[in-house]
């Protein structure tokens, strides 16, 4: 008996110590209608749970107790309890929600409604849509500036970044960007806005104060045709030292010197790499690879892709909980 208890004790303590350093990944599986849960430190798939139809965009709540997940074919955003992994509510996102962003206080969500050319603003606490803002054709990328002043919506066919004043919830300016803008990301200091263009195959960096273009960053990978280089998801580290861009069917993640705005390396990851997320300490980068049905884990300190983890069909988005 004693031995048994010792084992139990070690197991409990061990897992406690372990979890203190670990992070948990939540990955939406577009074709499996499910959510995969992966331990970031060990790279083990721990659980898969069925959720709504065609889950795509995923955001962790400010208190980290809930996940918001766009169930595109259910025309809703699901609220999922991170402890029980049960659906505890729904947010009225309107038709076909795909991507959305949360404001810095965690009070509102801004949702791209691709088919209706709208951005829906949701009050999370009230579970209510408070406004719909008409934007360009096929809104896709959406981002809120760290100071909460701007909401940026990029529309794929109109080829614009719309500058929405967050206080007024009105478009106050529009910037033409390269064809099929996909993702928009602010640097953590809020000084720059980065927009990736799938068809142009580049990333445009804008100065937020002047709304002027700073630089267009192109990509060139030996033995990969230019058409395969389709920039989608992006992440920029807190110190704006390095930025990472998922390059879709080229199966690469580009590493960019975020000060010089120059590409310095490419990581080979799974097929059709779509979205990216850091571990909380920014020592690892996780990628969802839609076609190879796995995620890649990149060790950023040693600059190495260390693992790929099979998670299920069409991994789309991911959120990381410390």
């Amino acid at each position: 008996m004693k031995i048994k208890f010792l084992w139990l004790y070690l197991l409990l303590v061990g897992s406690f110590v372990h979890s203190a350093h670990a992070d948990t990944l939540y990955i939406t599986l577009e074709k499996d209608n499910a959510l995969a849960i992966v331990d970031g430190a060990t790279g083990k798939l721990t659980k898969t749970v069925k959720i709504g139809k065609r889950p795509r965009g995923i955001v962790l709540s400010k208190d980290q107790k809930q996940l918001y997940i766009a169930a595109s074919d259910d025309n809703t955003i699901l609220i999922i309890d991170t402890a029980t992994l049960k659906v505890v509510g729904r947010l009225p996102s309107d038709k076909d929600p795909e991507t959305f962003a949360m404001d810095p206080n965690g009070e509102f969500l801004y949702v791209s409604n691709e088919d209706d050319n709208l951005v829906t603003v949701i009050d999370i606490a009230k579970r209510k849509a408070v406004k719909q803002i008409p934007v360009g054709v096929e809104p896709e990328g959406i981002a809120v500036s760290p100071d909460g002043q701007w909401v940026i919506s990029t529309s794929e066919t109109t080829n614009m970044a719309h500058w929405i004043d967050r206080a007024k919830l009105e478009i106050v300016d529009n910037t033409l960007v390269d064809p099929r803008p996909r993702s928009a990301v602010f640097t953590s200091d809020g000084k720059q806005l980065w927009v990736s263009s799938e068809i142009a195959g580049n990333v445009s960096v804008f100065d937020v104060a002047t709304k002027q273009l700073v630089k267009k960053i192109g990509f060139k990978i030996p033995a990969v045709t230019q058409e395969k280089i389709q920039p989608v998801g992006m992440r920029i580290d807190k110190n704006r030292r390095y930025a990472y861009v998922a390059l879709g069917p080229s199966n690469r993640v580009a590493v960019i010197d975020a000060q010089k705005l120059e590409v310095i390396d490419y990581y080979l990851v799974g097929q059709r790499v779509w979205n990216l997320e850091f571990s909380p300490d920014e020592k690892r980068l996780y990628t969802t690879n839609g076609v190879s049905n796995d995620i890649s884990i990149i060790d950023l300190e040693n600059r190495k892709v260390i693992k790929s983890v099979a998670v299920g069909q069409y991994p789309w988005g991911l959120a990381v909980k410390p």
Partner: protein
Amino acid sequence: MKFACKTPLIGLLCLTLVVSAEAAPKKTALPEKEPSKPSPALTANLSVAYLAQDKANPPTLPFFLTQPADVGMQGARLGIADNNTTGRFTGQSFQLKTNQLAADADATAAFKQRVAEGYRHILVNLPSEAVASLAKLPEASNVLIYDVGSSDDSLRGENCSANLLHLLPSRAMRTDALMQYLNKKRWQKIFLVTGPEEADQQYAAAVKRSAQRFGVKIVAEKPWQHHFEERRTPESAVPVFTQGVDYDMLVVADEAGIFGDLFAYRTWQPRPVAGTQGLIPSAWHFTHEQWGALQLQNRFRDQAKRWMTEKDYAAWLAVRAIGESASRAKSTDFDKIKGFMLGSEFALAGFKGVPLSFRPWDGQLRQPVLLSTDRSLVAVAPIEGFLHQKNELDTLGVDQPESQCHNPTHSGNGQKP
């Protein structure tokens, strides 16, 4: 919405309550769904005309193959709607004047009238001979004509005009796409069956040119007369017609769709069919969903209540090319739009994964070609591995050195890198 779902026992009940309560008042909770009025004070207008004509002697098709009357026009309408969504932010407004002429109407007169009314961007969905003669009218010299209905190679070759742009893939592009695929599959022996119509002959000519380019051998070629006498049925005629030849794939040239469908499953040997029937190269197909295409398919279906055809797609592309150029050139001025559209910066997103642009030597829009069967998308050409020194899309169709269009005024600043 204040439900306190605190105890786990009533959690499920609570959830159901929340869900149903949310579902009902959703519509009323959303204030404005109407697009707001143009915000910029000054709106620049741009009018686009669309001209089409009913066929004089349409071929007799099976009862289940009726063509909707608004093929092409619906694509132009959707393009205008898309342009106007963008135009709300750029202060540009687009209008469409459509004209579907009766078979015996005078297309030239209708075209001249549009020009006289001031239209300078005119989409035409007309037979290739009509397009060629319209383009050569003195009235057309300061106009851009967008050919959204023809695949004719001569219209892009010896009969080309500087004011003429082609949105559908040429026959040469289509057959190149097919031959690239056959080359990749190593199905390199084909049996070519050509129908009696002029268009069929032209399709067959394109097949021959492409076969030679991509190492495919035409091991047999037979004309199909298509007259079934008494006791001569497809069941009896097709096996005999295809007997005694060793080939990999039967390629049919039957653009009107009169007889090509009779071949599959009736040939002497079990062989697949491609060309104008079977595995078909086209600009657009309802099974295509990659690269965001599903969004265009959905948008079109919402508007037209039917699937998008390739002529709808061509007309949509034409209107989008105008809209994209107007927003990039920040102007609705004809010369500025034309300059941008035919310049090296023009990159049109056509939901086929790569930027589309016009070839300066013949006004053809470069684009991938879809290879599909009835209900399945099989491949998208250019097929991987077929390389080109400038743009892989130029492995499809007539490249600059071989172009018969010696009218070097599809101006702009040369081709894209």
